[in-house]
């Protein structure tokens, strides 16, 4: 529908509104206050809470009017309404009064206090005194698992939680129970919420029923938090986050609105997956550098430590976890030839082809996904690898129903009406997959098979689309997919790296090429493994070596003095290699923020900042370059990786002297602009300073009063963002540290910074994308798929089903994720089970080997039948395995003793995780009382 501007009269004044909007959205677009609960800009109107009532008049002579619900009333030219008349004001106050009959008024102990939509709306309606004299309803709360707290007595029954959880996000384990004024929102019984989007309940709930458990455990009011705009570092989507900190520990993550990407919602990996920054696995000290002063580190210390290595050649490994700046700088230091972009030997061919794909296709944004009316997913479990994309795909499936509703004159925002009309009708979604995925249940068809089979199917589909087929050779299912694709207005193809099958990856890209050749409005996207993987693709060239090659060369090449590894855990590094590195006398420098395999092995460790303490850029799956800012300044000797690299450059006497004096992010960028070809980023020059802390910040001067009565100096940073409440408006478009508007303390205040609800931010900057040149890698050989020899299972393929909380070592090593028990299950077909004489629920020992390697691994799993599996394909879900590069050796009945031992191990892991979680909390709370004063000074030279 076209955006048609209409004029309506609100309280007698004329306003311009969008003709496709409902009255509530129109009122809010004009930045007028009108309270609401059940309406949500992304979820539309259902008319349950009755809070947004206004008086509508027939014409200018009508003085009485009638009450209508703004959220369910479409705007019309010349419409006359009133917000400030007595009748509608009184009714709105009554609605709050009625809701409050059961609300416990426990604001002082509520985690939502001070940023509660219910508080805001209560004040807005002027409901100030209570008339209800009866008893209040009480409920029993549930344990909803690791992330979300539950306090049902606070509920005002707006139904937003289930509308988000079930209708919007497709969750199945949160529902509505009971009726009348005893409506209960919860699970059938206590237990971990199963949805990957459960954390959004915290923001969707207008009051404190659903709260962030991590935040509640170590709590601060919103006005006491220091916040900064950040980018999620846990997958390639690049969701915008607002991270909140107090006393040097990160307290919580909230969604930061971006109309093309995450909109109003993020996944649980983004919201809860940052706890590693508070972990005791954080590196806080240097290794291999003698500190000349007890007060801290001096530049000379680094220079002295590197004295023997001046001008020597180093190899380096960057990573998709590190910023564009750090990787680029590392590459400049060691030179292109010596710089590995951090891809393993298996990944490197994917990387090169992915870069090639990016040179021809612009991957779609999440907002564009939601416009698609046909989706084909090629063996990528996006719900686990890039969850926010899966949420958008779910919205795309609604387009058929929305179109049907529109044909009946029902606008898309009439949520319940549209869902009634849509019934079970969905836009087509076809899935080829090697593991069962959560989107399967909403797919038109799902083909569960090996990547090899999928590759053949994709090739058939290409043949059909390019008219190079003879009808009788093609599987009718493929013809059906091709038909649906051709008929669609905006077909979308999604794939990624998770299947780790190179042949399938190539043919997926060939398919995308074929689709875009035959359908002008088609679109596609490829997910990538890490937050800045696409930034690394940009640095990958023909000569780029894999991680394995780089390590091997470091060991064997006598010209190489050592290896610098930037924020890379080097999972493939073996004990033998570590020994060889040591005996070859190589200097291994690790720059990272958390302790891992390589930081333990390295002779020199430089503690770097995680994303919450850094300033830099990531490029998401689209190549969209986004900046993140430090929410809290690092405590020396922790520094930004690029700051360490400047010191290394000076110690190793690499690059120009200019670099050695770089002490700010903007001078670093100036240096890049001068010295780097195709340097893609231009910093926005900003004159205004922006406060990270809200102006009402309490106890600002008392924060450290237990240690000194003097007010501490705030950390000076040259960026626009201040580590204080000093600064101008928070309205900085794309980079708001937190959201607040007069009268609106909750995140719903975002409406006042948008052009219209659900629309772009008013002050947004234009998006920046990396531009990829056509790659010369077309002809590189297909790598050997590496079937191991001499196993009885040559003909059987195995895929790993890895949930999001096991995908990244930073996340999975955290206590709360360790405590999320994932059952070990091997899914097989019935005929496979019969052939192997195994029965359902039997415990089996699965022996695995790594491709091209002698590494063996054995895991215990329970056998389950998946009737959709072909006989030659299995998939395994196992807590111990996080990657898809295993080959099946054998499946045998488990030995009882060994099984028992394994069960004990799991139990112990849970126990120690529980203890660790407790200890971490105690440590952080203690730290609140003993925060070092020097935290508030900044920069190395200060020390």
């Amino acid at each position: 529908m076209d955006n048609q501007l209409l004029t309506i009269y609100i309280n007698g004044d004329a306003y311009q509104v969008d003709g496709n909007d409902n009255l509530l959205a129109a009122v809010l677009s004009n930045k007028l206050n009108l309270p609401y609960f059940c309406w949500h800009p992304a979820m539309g109107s259902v008319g349950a809470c009755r809070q947004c009532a206004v008086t509508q008049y027939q014409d200018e002579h009508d003085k009485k009017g009638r009450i209508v619900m703004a959220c369910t009333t479409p705007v019309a030219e010349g419409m006359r309404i009133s917000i400030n008349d007595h009748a509608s004001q009184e009714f709105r106050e009554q609605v709050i009064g009625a809701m409050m009959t059961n609300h416990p008024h426990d604001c002082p102990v509520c985690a939502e206090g001070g940023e509660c939509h219910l508080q805001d709306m209560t004040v807005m309606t002027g409901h100030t005194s209570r008339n209800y004299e009866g008893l209040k309803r009480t409920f029993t709360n549930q344990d909803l698992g690791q992330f979300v707290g539950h306090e049902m007595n606070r509920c005002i029954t707006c139904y937003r939680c289930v509308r988000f959880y079930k209708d919007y996000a497709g969750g199945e384990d949160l529902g509505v129970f009971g009726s009348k004024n005893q409506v209960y929102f919860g699970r059938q019984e206590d237990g971990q919420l199963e949805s990957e989007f459960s954390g959004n309940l915290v923001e969707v709930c207008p009051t404190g029923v659903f709260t962030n458990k991590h935040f509640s455990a170590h709590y601060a009011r919103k006005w006491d938090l220091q916040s900064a705009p950040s980018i999620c570092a846990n997958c390639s989507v690049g969701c915008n986050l607002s991270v909140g900190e107090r006393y040097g520990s990160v307290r919580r993550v909230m969604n930061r609105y971006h109309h093309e990407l995450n909109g109003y919602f993020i996944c649980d990996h983004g919201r809860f997956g940052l706890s590693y920054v508070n972990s005791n696995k954080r590196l806080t000290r240097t290794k291999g550098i003698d500190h000349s002063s007890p007060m801290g580190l001096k530049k000379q210390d680094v220079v002295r430590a590197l004295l023997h290595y001046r001008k020597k050649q180093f190899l380096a490994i960057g990573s998709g976890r590190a910023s564009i700046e750090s990787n680029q700088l590392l590459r400049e230091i060691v030179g292109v030839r010596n710089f590995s972009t951090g891809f393993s030997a298996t990944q490197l061919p994917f990387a090169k082809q992915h870069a090639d794909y990016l040179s021809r296709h612009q991957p779609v944004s999440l907002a564009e996904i939601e416009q698609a009316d046909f989706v084909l997913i090629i063996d990528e479990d996006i719900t686990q690898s890039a969850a926010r994309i899966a949420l958008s795909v779910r919205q795309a499936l609604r387009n058929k129903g929305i179109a049907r509703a529109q044909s009946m004159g029902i606008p898309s925002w009439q949520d319940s009406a549209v869902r009634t009309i849509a019934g079970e009708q969905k836009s087509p979604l076809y899935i080829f997959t090697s593991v069962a995925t959560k989107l399967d249940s909403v797919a038109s068809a799902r083909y569960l098979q090996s990547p090899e089979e999928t590759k053949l199917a994709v090739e058939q589909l290409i043949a059909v689309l390019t008219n190079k087929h003879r009808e009788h050779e093609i599987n009718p299912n493929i013809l059906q997919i091709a038909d649906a694709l051709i008929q669609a207005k905006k077909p979308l193809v999604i794939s990624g790296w998770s299947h780790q099958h190179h042949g399938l990856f190539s043919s997926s890209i060939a398919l995308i090429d074929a689709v875009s050749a035959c359908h002008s409005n088609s679109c596609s996207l490829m997910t990538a493994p890490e937050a800045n993987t696409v930034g690394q693709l940009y640095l990958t060239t023909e000569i780029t070596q894999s991680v394995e090659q780089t390590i091997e060369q470091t060991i064997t090449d006598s010209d190489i003095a050592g290896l610098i590894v930037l924020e890379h855990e080097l999972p493939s590094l073996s004990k033998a290699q570590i020994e060889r590195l040591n005996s070859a006398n190589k200097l291994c420098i690790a720059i990272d923020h958390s302790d891992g395999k390589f930081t333990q092995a390295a002779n020199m460790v430089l503690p770097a900042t995680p994303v919450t303490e850094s300033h830099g850029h990531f490029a998401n799956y689209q190549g969209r370059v986004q900046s993140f800012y430090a929410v809290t300044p690092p405590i020396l000797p922790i520094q930004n990786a690029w700051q360490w690299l400047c010191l290394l450059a000076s110690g190793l006497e690499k690059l120009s002297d200019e670099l050695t004096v770089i002490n700010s992010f903007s001078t670093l960028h100036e240096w890049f602009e001068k010295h780097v070809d195709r340097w893609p980023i231009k910093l926005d020059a900003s004159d205004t300073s922006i406060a990270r802390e809200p102006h009402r910040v309490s106890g600002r001067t008392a924060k450290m009063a237990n240690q000194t009565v003097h007010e501490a100096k705030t950390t000076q940073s040259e960026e626009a963002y201040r580590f204080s409440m000093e600064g101008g408006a928070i309205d900085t478009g794309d980079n708001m540290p937190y959201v607040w508007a007069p009268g609106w303390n909750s995140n719903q205040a975002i409406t006042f910074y948008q052009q219209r609800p659900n629309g772009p931010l008013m002050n947004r900057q234009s998006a920046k994308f990396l531009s990829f040149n056509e790659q010369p890698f077309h002809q590189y050989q297909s790598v050997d798929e590496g079937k191991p020899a001499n196993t009885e299972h040559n003909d059987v393929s195995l895929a790993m089903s890895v949930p999001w909380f096991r995908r990244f070592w930073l996340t999975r090593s955290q206590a709360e994720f360790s405590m999320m028990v994932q059952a070990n299950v091997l899914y097989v077909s019935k005929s496979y089970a019969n052939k192997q004489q195994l029965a359902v629920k039997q415990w089996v020992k699965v022996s695995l080997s790594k491709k091209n390697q002698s590494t063996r691994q054995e895991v215990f799993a329970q056998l389950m039948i998946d009737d959709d599996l072909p006989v030659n394909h299995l998939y395994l879900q196992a807590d111990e395995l996080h990657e898809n590069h295993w080959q099946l050796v054998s499946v045998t009945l488990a030995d009882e003793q060994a099984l028992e031992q394994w069960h004990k191990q799991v139990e112990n892991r849970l126990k120690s995780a529980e203890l660790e979680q407790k200890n971490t909390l105690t440590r952080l709370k203690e730290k609140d009382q003993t925060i070092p004063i020097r935290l508030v000074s900044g920069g190395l030279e200060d020390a």
Partner: protein
Amino acid sequence: MTPLTHPLTHLVDVNNPLNFKGYCQQKGYAAAKKVLFEYTPAEALDTVKSSGLKGRGGAGFPTGMKWSFLPEFEEDDPRAKEPKYLICNADEMEPGTFKDRLLLEGVPHQLIESMIIAGYIIGATRAYIFLRGEYHLAAKRIQQAIDEAYQASWLGNDIQQSGYSLELHLHTSAGRYICGEETALINALEGKRATPRAKPPFPQVAGLFGKPTIVNNVETLSNLPHIFAHGVEWFQQHAPESDAGTKIYGACGRIKIPGLWELPMGVSIGRLLNDHAGGMCEGLALKGLLPGGASTDFLLPEHLDVAMDYDSIAKAGSRLGTGGLIVLDDKNCPVAMVKNIMQFFAQESCGWCTPCRDGTPWALEILTRIEQGKGTLTDIDELYRLCDFMWIGKTHCALAPGAVEPLRSALNYFTDDFIQHIEEHCCPYQQRGHHG
């Protein structure tokens, strides 16, 4: 009782209802046969429209007009091939109302015949009877009748070789008053929460499973065979101009003969109460009455001459509703009665919209206090405020306004009783030794 004077009930036998054979012997299924073989659906629809039949479920909406809202598609439109549904609303749960039960238990085949006719006219291929869960006997008898009809080829594929097919299913409700609201009923039938839907879309356009659907009350549907058997003129002669047909009236309360009577539409309240229900019990006088179930406004003894048709009752300030009188005598406490009714509506609120969900229990809480003699005069203002709060247009459906009707009319008509409770700090009726 003849078919011409008591079309709906002349075959009713609550102890031993007619089986298929017996029903056929009484000219059963003759009207259905006539419609299937002699009428096109469009012709039959015209007949229903011109008959003036109005919905007997409470709202009184013209049946033929309701059916004509079904969308018509061009033949090549894919939507033309989508199914349509017919639902019989047999979820009779309005307090004081039990007319449908008589038809369901007493002459089950009449309903099936009616549904075949309605299904044929609207082009439904599948039909459901949504039956109140507590009507166990009706469930048994309806299911038996459905089975017989299938055996006799009056249901299923190609009914009587007419080319028309209809699948009919009995669904017994899990038991919520709100399922009487047609869209809540549809949600319940789909296995969802029984919450009324947003309208538009109306069920005629997008109802059960998003497909065009007609929902009609048992009594409404039961008129159909007789309209086709005896003609439109015969049907219209039973009632004054604005209405047509007969109506099953009921009466309960402390009256001599509580019960049900099929009478020409528009009988006066006085005749119904005194001639058919035998008047008040000994020693009691009429204080007021609810003319059509619990969700209608009180009427007073001065209204005895009002005709029980949709327009006349509306003019008197109430609604015909289901046509089931609930009679209040002078020795029963009106506050207790209203409290009792409010308790029902607070209990049956679906919990969707705020005014109903939180307003009805609030009103109940105040009424309870007043009834116990603990109320204050400001409580009466608060009750009036709540009546405004829950009125039409402010709520999602008609349940809360239905709860307001007896409350507000009681506040207006029986003000003294409320004030007495407050001033005497007790229930004056209990004080006088009457039943409260």
